[in-house]
């Protein structure tokens, strides 16, 4: 008996507890409709309701509803209000309301998006999207004209992923700007943009961007399924989506990339990944992503391949340094002193002589200190930045060493670890190893090098079993596909990458014609098919 009401409450109750009333058709009376409106949305100060009555007999009575701040005032005034009020046919005597409705819909409104709707449930979201609603006395149908135009941040240089050479524009908080930036980079009919609205209270627009034919249908179906399964009241940032749809909830490794750069996103889409642009945040998502994707920076393709390859190898090195260096220091000083050259060992021992803490505690303390400093650097007001630098560099570094609290070697180890962490282009994976580092240090303190190797094996086994939307996380290394390794540890010249280098379950497709390696002028006599055509000369 007591279970019965509980059960029924669970089934009837909306899981996110927003009120979702039954669809309510509009009434004939304009007054009734307006009353229903104000009952629903209250009398918020930003909602503007404009009544209009024509001079004709019987008069045509309309009401305009829009939200101040979401609409472009000029558009509303000129395109909607003015064009309706000054139209002579509309103000003529012999026009019925139905005729007026059709006339307005088909002819008068000079705006792109005009929709008609019969229920409040359809009208309200449009209103919140910046539409101007036009309600008619005596009609059970209303019009909505797209007049949206709110204040947006202008396009700026991305702050989280800078480049020296390459495009300097980043996504903004506007979904439409984001999709437009991608559209501008991918001028092909294959580009598909699917929009979803997720979050009952935030109604966040989410756009799935992909190239038809390149993106795997399997992956797309899976992403759509997971997006549709999200039932929450708020999506405020891309991470909300990421956490809801990513594989392997219990993994320290990210399986979805995020980027602020439209060029990086276009690059990913061109390799068969699916982009997810989210309204309200400049960070967009790319899936499926393998481990190695996180080490590729879009700048790799904007620089010469030799330097790009070198930098990429440096990144992998920095990844391991950042993950292992403090742990190795602890392991070697605690368990394996014999592995150090004698002179180095003596110098380390001399430094550690006055230090009161064991190596592990010392390392833990310094690592935590650095994380505190780093967090402070992110949160503090810009104006007091120099103070933090002084405190960090002098007090916690030099003074701590001089006071004999930590050894100088430890300061070097921690600094190098910290700097290495910033070499990794993706913050997502850099953050995950920030945590792994602590586990590693603990294991190194208890089992030495053996522990470090064991934990590395655990990570490897874990990653070998991980998938991102069906794509093995370590591909194309494990499972190995040798011809895809051209863009993993090194980057071969662009003319050497004729096939799409990643395995995203998509079809293997050619992306350019082969044999484009620049040749000396001897072959210039017979023009190669790959020679770029001058622009504007016939269809491409």
């Amino acid at each position: 008996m007591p279970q019965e009401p509980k059960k029924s409450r669970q089934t009837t109750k909306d899981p996110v507890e927003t009120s979702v009333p039954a669809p309510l058709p509009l009434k004939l009376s304009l007054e009734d409709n307006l009353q229903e409106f104000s009952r629903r949305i209250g009398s918020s100060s930003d909602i503007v309701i404009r009544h209009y009555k024509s001079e004709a007999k019987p008069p045509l009575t309309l009401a305009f509803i829009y939200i101040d701040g979401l609409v472009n005032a000029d558009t509303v005034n000129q395109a909607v209000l003015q064009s309706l009020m000054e139209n002579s046919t509309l103000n003529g005597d012999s026009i019925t309301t139905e005729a007026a409705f059709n006339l307005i819909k088909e002819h008068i409104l000079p705006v792109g998006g005009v929709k008609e709707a019969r229920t409040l449930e359809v009208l309200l979201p449009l209103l919140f999207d910046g539409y101007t609603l036009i309600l008619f006395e005596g009609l059970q149908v209303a019009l909505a004209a797209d007049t949206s135009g709110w204040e947006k941040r202008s396009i700026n240089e991305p702050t989280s992923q800078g480049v020296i050479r390459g495009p300097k524009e980043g996504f903004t908080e506007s979904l439409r700007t984001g999709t437009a930036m991608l559209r501008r980079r991918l001028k092909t009919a294959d580009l598909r943009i699917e929009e979803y609205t997720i979050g009952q209270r935030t109604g966040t627009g989410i756009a799935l961007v992909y190239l038809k034919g390149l993106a795997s249908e399997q992956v797309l179906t899976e992403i759509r399924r997971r997006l549709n399964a999200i039932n929450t009241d708020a999506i405020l940032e891309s991470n909300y989506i990421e956490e809801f749809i990513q594989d392997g909830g219990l993994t320290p490794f990210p399986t979805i990339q995020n980027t602020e750069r439209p060029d990086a996103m276009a690059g990913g889409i061109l390799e068969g990944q699916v982009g997810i642009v989210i309204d309200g945040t400049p960070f967009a998502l790319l899936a499926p992503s393998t481990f190695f994707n996180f080490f590729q920076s879009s700048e790799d393709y904007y620089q010469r391949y030799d330097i790009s390859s070198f930098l990429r190898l440096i990144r992998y090195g920095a990844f391991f340094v950042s993950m292992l260096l403090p742990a190795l220091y602890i392991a070697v000083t605690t368990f394996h002193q014999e592995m150090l050259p004698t002179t180095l060992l003596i110098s380390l021992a001399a430094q550690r002589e006055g230090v009161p803490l064991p190596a592990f505690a010392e390392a833990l303390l310094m690592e935590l200190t650095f994380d505190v400093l780093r967090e402070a650097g992110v949160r503090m007001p810009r104006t007091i930045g120099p103070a933090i630098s002084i405190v960090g560099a002098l007090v916690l570094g030099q003074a701590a060493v001089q006071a004999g609290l930590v050894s100088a070697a430890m300061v070097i180890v921690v600094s190098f670890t910290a700097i290495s962490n910033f070499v990794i282009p993706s913050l997502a994976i850099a953050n995950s190893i920030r945590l792994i580092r602590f586990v590693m240090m603990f294991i190194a303190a208890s089992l030495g090098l053996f522990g470090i190797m064991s934990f590395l094996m655990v990570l490897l086994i874990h990653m070998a079993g991980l998938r991102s939307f069906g794509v093995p996380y370590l591909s194309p290394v494990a499972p190995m596909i040798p011809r895809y390794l051209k863009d993993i540890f090194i980057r071969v010249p662009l003319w050497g990458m004729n096939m799409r280098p990643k395995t995203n379950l998509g079809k293997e497709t050619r992306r350019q014609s082969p044999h484009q390696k620049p040749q000396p002028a001897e072959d210039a006599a017979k023009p190669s098919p790959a020679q770029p055509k001058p622009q504007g000369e016939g269809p491409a």
Partner: protein
Amino acid sequence: MVNKEQVSSLQIAFMIMLFEIGSTPLFLLGGTAKQDSWLAMCAGSAAGFALLLVLMWIQHRSPGTDLIGMLKAHFGTAPGAFIGAVYSLYFAYQSMRNVRDLGELTAMTMLPRTPMAITMLVFVLLALYAIWKGAEVVFRLPEVLLPVMLFFYFLLVVMLSIMGAIDLSRLAPVMEGGLMPVLQAALPEIVSFPFGQMIVFLMLWTLWEKPGVPVKYTVNAYLLISAFLIFMNALNVAVLGPAIAGVSQLPFLKTVRVLSNLKFVERLDILVTIQLFLGLLIKMMLFYFCSVKALAELTGKPAKWWVFPMGAVIYGSSFLERDYTQHIAVGLGPSLKLDPLFQVAIPLLLALSIWVRGRLQRSA
């Protein structure tokens, strides 16, 4: 699970190489042949290759069936199941030998004060974790580990040759005592470790994504790795000389320590330790995996059901031997006598049975 776990030809090739490397280069096999130990390796490898051909032929003639299935088909259900169970135990025993090897070597080189019980437990748990994740994950590991391992070997070899530590004259005179000492050193020791251990692939070839045996990849992998092992063997002797290489417990560690004597780099033990760890881990993992797979097939239970019990058995049995001396004594004594039975005799019986049955079928 709907779709069967499958592995690619490349994964099998990588697995063969890593499995065969195992801990082999660390020891001097065929030490009794003195400076001709590398020739003994050649002989062992050649004999192993003949054996491999037999194994591949068996697998080729029984597509889609692994060792357990073949045993049941050819020796009758009950006797076949019994032999299968014995094989499972044999694999577990081999796995346990590797666990113990690692425990001893870790205590010897890395963690002298940590109880072996802990290091061996960590080791078994690592393998358990991978096997729990399934064949696909197990076979992905060599693709990452083999390049790492070969890179470290390459680094050491390059450094040894730069420092001029390699003296090929230590390999002379070739075949001082004729062919006999070489063959005596090779048979059966080198055949049973490491080349004869290819028997485990009778359990694994069925995982291949296509039916049959990836002949090209298997043979190439085997030949490549044989060449590598022979080279490493010759290297040990060329650096240390047959006398020292023959008596030391871990000649390769000694070889690498030669580098520190040259005052170039102080200690590269860490590289050797990593190689040791990885090699033993993969070898142990694969034996453990085969043992679990055999049991799962015999009992009709899913493999995951046997992962933990088998892990416990392997871990527990690794304490049976009193000390390293006994461990080595067992390894070189009873173990070596037993190996040919599992590695050579039973496969040959299988091959015979297949051949006879094929004949009978053709005549009928």
